[in-house]
C-alpha cells in the first residue's frame, strides 16, 4: 500500500527523495520504495524519517 502521507509530508517540507534520503542516511531508492509501499522500514528508519520531517510515527506510519 502506498504511503501517501510520507510523500505529502516530504513535499510539504519541500524536500526531494534524494534530500530526505541523505537526511536519514539511506539511499534514494529506499525512500522511493517506502513511498510506493514496496518496503516496510524498521522502527529505527521510521523514527529517522519522522525526525527529518518533524512528524510523529502516528502521523506518518500508523494506519
Amino acid at each position, binding site marked *: 500500500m502506498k504511503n501517501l502521507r510520507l510523500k505529502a509530508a516530504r513535499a510539504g517540507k519541500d524536500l526531494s527523495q534524494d534530500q530526505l534520503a541523505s537526511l536519514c*542516511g*539511506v*539511499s534514494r*531508492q*529506499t525512500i*522511493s*520504495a517506502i513511498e510506493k509501499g514496496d*518496503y516496510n*522500514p*524498521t522502527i*529505527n*528508519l521510521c523514527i529517522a524519517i519522522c525526525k527529518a520531517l518533524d512528524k510523529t510515527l502516528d502521523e506518518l506510519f500508523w494506519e
Partner: protein
Amino acid sequence: MNAVASYGMVFGLMIGLVIAVILLKFANKDHRFKTQYDERQESIKGRGYKYSFYTLACLEAALAILEVGDISFGIERYLVHFIVLLISFAVLCVHSIWNGTYWGLNNNRKRYTAIIVIAIALNLIPVIASIANGTLAKEGFNSLPLLNVIVLIWMAVIGICALVKKAFDTKENEED
C-alpha cells in the same frame, strides 16, 4: 609445463591470494574502504547472495554430472568453471541493480567508473592484439584470448542491465 611447475604455479597463486586478502584486511582495519548499505539494501544483497549461491551450486552440480558422463566442451575446462562463476556473479549483480542496490551509500561513482573503464581496456587489449596479429584469421576462434572475451561479454550484460534499470528509474521519476 611439467607437473612440478604446474603444482608450483597453483600453490604460488593460492598463497598469493591468501597474502593479498590478509594485506587487504590490515589496510582496511578502520573499514574506510568498506561499502556501507542501508537496511533495505542489506536485505536485498542478502537475497542476492542466496540466489547467487544456488545458481553456482546448481551449475557446478550440472557440470559434475556432465563430466561424469565424459561429455567434453568445445573450450578448456577451466574456462567452463570460470563461466559458471561469472554467471553466479551476474545473478548477484543483476538482482542488486534491479532492486536499486548496486551503489552503496559511500561509493565514489567516478572512481568506480574509472576502474570499470580500466578493466574494459585491460580485457579489450589482448583481444584487439590477437585480431591485429592476424592469428584470428589464421587459427580461428580458439586463437582469441577467450577469458578476456568472456569477461567482456559479462561486463556488457551487467552494463546493459544497469542502463535498462536507469531508463526505468528515469521514467518512474517523471511519473512521480
